[in-house]
């Protein structure tokens, strides 16, 4: 999972027409070392596959065969398919990186990590499934975790969609409200005077604290959960937006006014663009809170969602399903972070050098 995106991908911006900078000479990876790293990368995954395929299953584990699109599949085969896919992916991207010094550097720097990842999977496989040495049912093997995707893919998918819908509704509303009120607070001193203290006080309260209140106030559990996510986005984004607006250098407003700008231009074309870095910091913060709140809300009384799925599975002691849901969350939330990071890098491409956190 080494290529899961960081929260905010920090990436140098290269001015148009300027050549990409190569790492300093001494830090570039020579070709021979690349070969070693390439082998290491593939070795880890190969070991994981081999262990799964050839180490004998001594423990008494029922391995059910499912039929997917006409093919018989056990969780072990699915597991090997996925690891095989990873192996293929890295083989191709590794070969692809060979000719480009910068990509080669990037590829090789992560190679030891990938080796260890493969080995850890192999050991986990042996302890968790093959020999059943880990306490069950709390720690299933890595292959077993994939079984829910064979058993009840549709049900998982429904829950993913539920979570996504909840997140999309709550987060978009939170961002819109947050930026909107942030602008008002940042621009009008009166609004700041009356509302900023309120914002500061309520901002420190974890959104889930409003849960009982939300559940009674809102007609459906869905709207109650949306409310909670909106709240946690709102405060963080609003206060940072307000700060960003207020930090606009007076000189920039003066420049704009001598160019003939009136108030709308000053707000929308000077203050807001200038506040964008802060706004995105607010959005990134809010994002983290929103995931927490989302899962909490789902675990405490939603008719669907990944949190709900976890709760349901826990009741049946189906911990491999809990792990499956966690895996989905890891991928899903990382993807969302990645998308926000990309939007941010695009919007803030005017900033000098690196996109700052």
């Amino acid at each position, binding site marked *: 999972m080494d290529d899961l995106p960081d929260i905010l991908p920090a990436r140098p911006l290269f*001015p*148009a027409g*300027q050549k990409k900078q190569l790492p300093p000479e001494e830090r570039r990876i020579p070709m021979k070392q690349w070969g070693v790293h390439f082998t290491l990368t593939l070795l880890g995954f190969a070991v994981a596959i081999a262990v799964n395929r050839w180490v004998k299953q001594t423990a008494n584990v029922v391995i059910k065969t499912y039929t997917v699109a006409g093919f018989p599949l056990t969780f072990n085969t699915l597991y090997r398919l996925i690891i095989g896919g990873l192996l293929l992916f890295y083989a191709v991207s590794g070969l692809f990186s060979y000719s480009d010094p910068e990509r080669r550097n990037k590829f090789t720097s992560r190679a030891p990590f990938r080796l260890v990842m493969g080995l850890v999977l192999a050991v986990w496989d042996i302890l968790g499934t093959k020999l059943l040495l880990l306490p069950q049912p709390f720690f299933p093997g890595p292959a077993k975790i994939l079984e829910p995707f064979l058993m009840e893919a549709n049900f998982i998918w429904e829950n993913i969609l539920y979570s996504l819908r909840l997140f999309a509704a709550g987060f978009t509303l939170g961002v819109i409200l947050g930026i909107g009120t942030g602008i008002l607070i940042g621009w009008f001193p009166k609004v700041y005077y009356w509302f900023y203290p309120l914002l500061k006080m309520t901002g420190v309260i974890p959104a889930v604290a409003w849960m009982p209140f939300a559940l009674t106030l809102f007609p459906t559990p869905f709207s109650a959960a949306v409310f909670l996510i909106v709240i946690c986005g709102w405060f963080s984004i609003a206060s940072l937006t307000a700060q960003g607006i207020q930090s606009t250098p007076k*000189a*920039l407003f*003066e*420049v*704009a*006014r*001598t*160019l*003939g*700008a*009136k108030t709308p*231009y000053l707000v929308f*074309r*000077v203050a807001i*663009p*200038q506040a*964008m870095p802060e706004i995105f910091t607010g959005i990134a913060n809010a994002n983290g809170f929103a995931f927490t709140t989302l899962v909490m809300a789902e675990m405490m009384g939603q008719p669907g969602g990944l949190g709900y799925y976890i709760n349901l599975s826990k009741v049946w002691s189906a911990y491999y399903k809990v792990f499956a849901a966690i895996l989905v969350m890891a991928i899903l939330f990382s993807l969302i972070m990645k998308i926000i990071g990309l939007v941010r890098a695009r919007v803030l*491409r*005017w*900033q*000098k*050098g690196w996109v700052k956190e």
Partner: protein
Amino acid sequence: MNKESSASSDGILKIEEVNRTYYDDDGHRVEALQKINLSVRRGEFLSIIGSSGCGKTTLLRLIAGLDQPESGRLTLNGKPITGPDPQRGYVFQQGGLFPWLTVEKNIAAGLKARGVYRQNKDLVAYFIQLVGLQDFAKSYPHQISGGMAQRVAIARALINNPDVLLLDEPMGALDSFTRADLQDKLLELHRENKTTMLLVTHDVDEAIYLSDRIVIMTPRPGRISEILEVNLPHPRHRGGTEFLHLRRRILEKLHLASAMPPPEYTI
């Protein structure tokens, strides 16, 4: 030449008996400007020179309408100045480009701010060309040099076709080569657009090289001590006898006027 024509149409910009006082942190009065009288002719290139703190920026801000005088009158084309207006373009001491806009969009900002961008799109390309930044149209301010940034700031102010262009030490932070380059550019722009230019500078040579008239100011209180005509044909030769003679006169005035050790002047 330029001079005769400008002398006939007297006083596009009039400053009469203007005072501006500030109070510093300890509550002491600072007479930033005292009894300023100045009449700027249409189409002329006027420089204001004086040591630091003599009120040059204050005067320019009053003309721009970014600040109000305590007493006195400022008029442009007979109309009192009450606030900022695109007919009085302002190039700030630090350029003040919008960092989130490309060179091209910075230059277009004035058109957008006035809501006339659609009708005047072609102007943007014209002004980019005029200041010689075709290759940098899509660059962001942090990607261009200080000299380029100042050219962008000048083009951005000029695109509104102002009656007066106010320049607050636009070349203060530049090395001497870039500076000489930009000075010639300014002269060229002045010749082509016939815009009235008001340039604040620390640099005596720059003032003589560019101006039709030079206003010498002295600090504490900020006053105009003398206004000199520069009757030299363009292009001016920085090593010429008349040039050097004028230079010595101005330096003497500046030293005499401020009872302080002579400030440093860049050559």
